[in-house]
């Protein structure tokens, strides 16, 4: 695939394979800092290009390239859980192809990555980080509906125990716990809306809404960090007036800046 990178433009690239994967890339108009690649993963509205638009100002300010994969519903209906099984529709593997293409096309190192995921994208992101903790430098999860808890007593994707569909899982939790992680929730995102997974299994263990679930997951990660005697940096922040709509997060002016500040603060 050939395409000359053009600063100040959104590129759409397609990777052919078992399942076609598209992704969007934005290259800043002025200078580009090769260390600053911002990966953003959409929610179930699959608005990858909109994600790019929402962060262009920060990309210009930080000299950061933005990469936004698009997981089409027909190819990756369960991208939030990385796939429907270890062998079917693996969105994380498709994402790895995106990384490889970005690496070859823009000559930038594929990892460690600074990543953001919204809603279903937050689900994808924290699970991707559990499977590949060495690749993720820092991450921001905004409003995931539910989580994979670092609990070996519960089966994946609820916990990290292997199943028939996901056999032989082995996670390096001590590495995962060392990823600085910010969980953002809208302070009005406590509704049990139609998109929220309301199964009893999730309600009883994770909580009744996205705020409770975020609190419990963050606490569980911190607790396991304490068990490993690892100083963890898992924290939660609230976005004022935000419900679950992506626009309501963007409507909070410091939202995008807050994400970049957290992801790239160590590089400033």
């Amino acid at each position: 695939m050939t395409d000359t990178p053009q600063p100040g433009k959104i590129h759409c690239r397609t990777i052919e394979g078992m399942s076609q994967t598209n992704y969007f890339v934005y290259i800043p108009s002025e200078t580009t800092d090769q260390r600053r690649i911002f990966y953003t993963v959409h929610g179930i509205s699959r608005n990858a290009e909109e994600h790019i638009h929402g962060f262009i100002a920060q990309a210009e300010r930080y000299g950061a390239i933005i990469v936004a994969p698009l997981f089409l519903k027909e190819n990756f209906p369960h991208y939030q859980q990385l796939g429907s099984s270890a062998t079917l529709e693996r969105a994380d593997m498709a994402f790895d192809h995106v990384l490889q293409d970005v690496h070859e096309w823009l000559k930038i190192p594929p990892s460690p990555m600074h990543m953001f995921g919204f809603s279903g994208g937050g689900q994808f992101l924290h699970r991707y980080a559990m499977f590949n903790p060495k690749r993720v430098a820092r991450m921001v999860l905004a409003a995931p509906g539910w989580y994979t808890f670092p609990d070996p007593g519960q089966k994946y994707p609820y916990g990290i125990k292997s199943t028939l569909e996901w056999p032989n899982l082995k996670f390096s939790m001590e590495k995962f716990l060392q990823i600085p992680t910010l969980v953002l929730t809208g302070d009005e995102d406590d509704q049990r809306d139609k998109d929220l997974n309301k199964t009893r299994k999730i309600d009883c263990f994770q909580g009744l809404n996205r705020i409770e679930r975020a609190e419990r997951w963050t606490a569980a990660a911190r607790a396991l960090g304490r068990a490993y005697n690892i100083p963890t940096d898992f924290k939660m922040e609230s976005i004022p007036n935000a419900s679950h709509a992506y626009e309501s997060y963007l409507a909070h002016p410091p939202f995008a800046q807050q994400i970049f500040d957290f992801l790239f603060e160590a590089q400033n």
Partner: protein
Amino acid sequence: MDIQFEPLQKRRLDQAKWAYTTRRINRDQNFQLLGGTLIPKAGDLVLARVDELGQHQRLELVTSRRASLYEEDEIVVVYGNRYAPDQFEGIVPDHLEPCRLVAAGGVAARLLNRHDRVKTATRITPLGLLADDKGYRINLSSARLPKAEQIDHKPLVLVVAGTSMNSGKTTACANLVKGFVRQGIKVAAAKFTGTGAGADYRALVDAGADPVFDFVDAGYVSTYRVHRDVLLDIVMTLGAEMSSNKPDVIVIEVADGLLQRETARLFAIPEFTDWIDGVVFAANDALGAQAGVSWLSARQLPVFAITGVLTASPLAQREAHDICGLPVYHTNALAQKSVSSYVYSCLKFRSQKQSISNPVREEVG
């Protein structure tokens, strides 16, 4: 001092029920019965007659089988001090007068206190102390493992402590052992404090630990009212014996609650605490878990998970998790390979970190 010797027929001794606490004594020897104005000591073997059944209507034999007791049965048990908040407090009497059976494992003592919900202790009459053919009284210390000055090998060491008696420690220990064994990890296990009880010992054996010891192997029938040096002796003796078998992990149960005097004393012995890589705390409720975790953390002891009776309640689990900020594992889940592998990884990770920060910890002693 008026001492009487009486030869003992082998047949009579064979018919007597020998308690679990006597399991290290060689029965293929000639015994005499010592009577008179003797002052028993903890660990002395005593032949006694059952007078009236009370709380303990069965006696754990050396095989750990719980044999039914009948009035007028003759039993061989051991004088000792007993600390059991859910049952009895007993101490070694200063005479051979009638006393009580205060533990199913076979402990004779003078009864001091009993829990409201238990019957009074079974009444027994000592017939005399057991002595060898030279007339020396037989004490558990005569059949103990050799004393050790140091522990050479350093496997991973996991300790299970709890809020109190019956908080789920023994079940947690057995499940931890089972979980490790299921991963192919070689496990040794021991109970360092408490009162000699076959059920606890057998639970570890049944789960697959090998070898398994308790303080009886170090020559002590119980650890109530013992001196710090005795606790250190148990740590060194059992620690060295287990380590010499080169297990990957050692699982240790500490009896009763952290506030029990000897338990607290054990956790103040540097030779013990420096040896530990992790502590799993068993609690009856979330408030107890919080108190225990705080108590251990204040002493810089590496508590890293919570389990125990409280885990039967999901809400209590959540409370404990929230207040303690530690993973809470259901007691039964500890036997699962998936959970156990993370407990092991946690233990190993902590051990490596500790070795880096304190490289000179190859030997204890």
